[in-house]
């Protein structure tokens, strides 16, 4: 089932939901609750915030769902609501845990990483995945959101741009920078002795 087919189903469920069909609301909720909850959980790092934001998102959908008139995908519409809501929570709780782009401090996840040549060699290990989660959470918010939307939720650049409210080129450049930060961070946490070696050390310009 491709995205277009999902889109048709979502629009039909939304139409029925707005007409008062409780079962349609249940179906729509089941289709999207996990994505919304995961997105907000990874954005905030807090289950309580994720729960609140998920609830707010679907309440907003009930109240203002008529505002969605097929402009953009339903996924982008729903993530836009969740995005606004989670940013409000983050501002309120001042939970922005941003990393400096050239930080040198010891990472909190370092002890969880496997001190091997390839820190991501065993991606099935819980420690490894937890390290990735923590590295994402440590990104500045404007990088974190593009990583989550484009990689964890597989939104297109256009959809992510609609959710965030920026240009597609901005999404692309932020994603590029975010991944470079993630790569550097994961590498550094796994190999603290080589922390000084960063991305800009040995350009050859061949």
């Amino acid at each position, binding site marked *: 089932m491709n995205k277009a087919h999902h889109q048709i189903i979502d629009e039909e469920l939304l139409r029925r939901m707005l007409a008062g069909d409780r079962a349609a609301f249940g179906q729509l909720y089941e289709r999207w609750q996990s994505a919304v909850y995961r997105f907000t959980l990874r954005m905030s790092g807090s289950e309580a915030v994720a729960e609140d934001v*998920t609830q707010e998102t679907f309440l907003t959908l009930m109240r203002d769902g008529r505002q969605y008139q097929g402009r953009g995908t339903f996924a982008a519409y729903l993530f836009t609501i969740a995005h606004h809501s989670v940013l409000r929570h983050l501002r309120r709780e001042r939970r922005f845990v941003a990393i400096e782009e050239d930080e040198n401090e010891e990472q909190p996840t370092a002890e969880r990483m496997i001190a091997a040549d390839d820190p991501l060699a065993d991606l099935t290990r819980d420690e490894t995945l937890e390290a990735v989660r923590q590295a994402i959470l440590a990104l500045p918010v404007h990088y974190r959101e593009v990583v989550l939307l484009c990689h*964890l939720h597989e939104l297109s650049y256009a959809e992510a741009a609609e959710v965030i409210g920026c240009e597609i080129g901005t999404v692309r450049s932020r994603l*590029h920078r975010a991944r470079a930060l993630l*790569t550097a961070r994961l590498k550094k946490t796994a190999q603290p002795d080589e922390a000084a070696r960063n991305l800009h050390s040995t350009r050859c310009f061949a």
Partner: protein
Amino acid sequence: MNCREFEQSIVELSDGGLMDAAQRSLAQAHAEACAHCAERLAAERRTVAALRALAARDSAVSAPAHLRHALEAAFDENCAALNQAPVTARQWLRRGLAAAAAILLLFALAVSIWQRMNEQEIKADGKQTETAPATVPHREAAAPEVQTGQPDNDSAVSQVAGRTETSARRRSRHPVKTELRPTTANDEELAELFALTPLAATEPAEFEQVVSIEIPRSTLMLWGVPVNADRAGENVKAEVVIGEDGVARAIRLRN
């Protein structure tokens, strides 16, 4: 392709997504030639793989079950609230009438305010002429001078001054000197009357007021009266004839 250009295409290259074939070939060739970029590409691919693994693991994560129950309850309440208060045609009619009445009231209020503002503007214009005497001659500067030969007494003032237009803003700013006599501002008394509006000399006055003011001697030069440069800074007394609409009609100098 150099390292900087390679860096620009590393996202598409490591994602394995759509990419221009020529660009991909160039990037791959660069990675084979540059050890640093090859390492950078490998690290980027590992990061992408880690993100995909995390996405796969996270797909099992769900919102707590009680959230659905709470939302379904909210949905029921929402529907009940919508169903309880259907808007009938009679209610729509009442709302329409109320809206129309509100619009009419607003319109009447706006008209009333507009009329009051107009009245206040005319009054304020009159007060400004009274309280700011120096502005009157300056505003009437550089005007052609016409000798009309009016006598120098109060009755003459009444004949010269008069209402010419209803709106002060549409009024002509060209002063007309009623009588020009070769003299200087050093004289103790300049009794001739200078009309400040072109129609002042021809239209009879319905109402006017004479106000005593002081103006700098240098202002007299604006009407072509020769002024002693040594005394240009001194003030000279004058009487201004103000019309019904608050605009200065004529001026007479006294000392």
